[in-house]
């Protein structure tokens, strides 16, 4: 399935849930509303034509004004790939866990919580992970966070 066919299929079957974002010429990125995330993910995984059963990646993004969670999905059998994006408020962001769809999401969601402060609902194990156990200095991947001994490189 080519990207154009994938776009057509998603436009025909997921029109209510997925909004195509304009990101130029790359692989399609769709926006999903946070409250629909788990249902849409389950449908994408169980759809016979798509079968998005490979959870590749989940990355948080802090753009300065808002938080984003970007899910990269692929299919083991159908040779297709898609990105889903959930846009969240900058403060008190909350997102549902997709572990019931892909168990692989567990560690990625822990990381999202730990480094960006996005609370993951129904996760079950939001404990310190990459950072030290006694870490109390906030969420280091946020744009407004600088380490005390952080030296900015000179502008070229």
């Amino acid at each position: 399935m080519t990207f154009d066919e994938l776009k057509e299929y998603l436009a025909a079957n997921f029109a209510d849930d997925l909004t195509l974002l304009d990101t130029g010429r790359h692989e399609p990125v769709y926006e999903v509303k946070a409250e629909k995330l788990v249902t849409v993910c389950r449908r994408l995984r169980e759809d016979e034509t798509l079968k998005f059963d490979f959870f590749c990646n989940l990355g948080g993004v802090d753009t300065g004004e808002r938080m984003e969670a970007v899910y990269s999905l692929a299919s083991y059998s159908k040779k297709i790939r898609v990105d889903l994006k959930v846009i969240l408020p900058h403060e008190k962001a909350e997102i549902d866990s997709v572990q019931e769809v892909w168990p692989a999401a567990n560690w990625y969601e822990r990381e999202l919580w730990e480094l960006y402060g996005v609370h993951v609902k129904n996760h079950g194990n939001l404990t310190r992970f990459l950072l030290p156990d006694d870490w109390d200095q906030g969420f280091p991947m946020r744009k407004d966070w600088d380490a005390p001994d952080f030296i900015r490189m000179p502008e070229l």
Partner: protein
Amino acid sequence: MADLRTEEFTVNMGPHHPSTHGVCRLVLTLNGEKIIKIEPVIGYLHRALEKICENRTYAQCIPIMDRFEYVTAMSCNYLFSNAAEKLAGIEVPERAEYLRVIMLELNRIASHLIFYGVTAMDIGALTPFLYGLRERELIIDLFEMTCGQRLTYNYIRVGGVSRDIPAEFEPKCREAIKIIREKLIDYEGLLNENPIWLVRNKGIGVLPPELGIAYGVSGPVLRASGVKYDIRKDDPYSIYDRFDFQIPTRENGDCYDRYLLRLDEIKQSLNIVEQALDALPEGDIKAKVSPNFKPPAGEVYSRVENSRGELGVYIQSDGGKKPLRVKMRGGSYNQLQVLPHIGTNCLVADLVAIFASLDVILPEVDR
């Protein structure tokens, strides 16, 4: 004996255990010598590479990627360059693509040779370690004569490669291929039918394909469970669609199959290197790219087939000369996540074999 008191106890395996290939702590709950529960504790090697990348230009990020997965640093170099090229729409010259494929495949072989050595050493056989590192040295010498580095290459750059191969590269490379092909027969003779090796590996740590898929496992570990999934074929990047090679798979998904599969992959990679050397065209090795180039705002998730599964990077650009966000994804991350599921109900000694056969390296997990 009726009043014999038994209790479960907890043991730390690591963080400095020699068989954890880096600094990983496994908290084991044991009943006798049987493992009831495994809890991996990671983060000892967290160097905040993603945060560092946000403060650097795209060209400056590439040496950082070397430290992400240092056993196959070429893949990481390629991965980031490829993602940045997709973002900025840069065309790579033909010769550079061939050089990249040669380096990627040589690096895959070097990585599998390390696997061969350290896996056997974890289980108690020292000779394979010496064999594996001896042949790996031939490949490392090739890298050294090309880019001056033996581990962190910084060779594949945005737009091409940093320098052309020297004149003596091709004969030395062909010689190395010939030697490794011959030595592979020794390798197989040493372990394939070795009774100790069979007892320690056959039927140990079976990963059912459904479990692997649920936990996002990829690469040789998943192919040893019978799922034929290789990004070089299923989502081709660079010029892999021009080469004739097979994707080996195995059925049982145990430690032994994972070992056999990696030896099969070395043979396929040798074929690819040979084909690429035969077809290597003349021409430029680098497109003209400003060191401070600014890709347009956008985002890309790029992925390559590494010796440890899918290696991916997500880059978001806001139109500036530094990336807004770089998220790295390594195959080891998912393989370590699935370890508690395949490692329970086995013996502590078997856990060493399972951990080794998953070929996890920790810098890739912790970043």
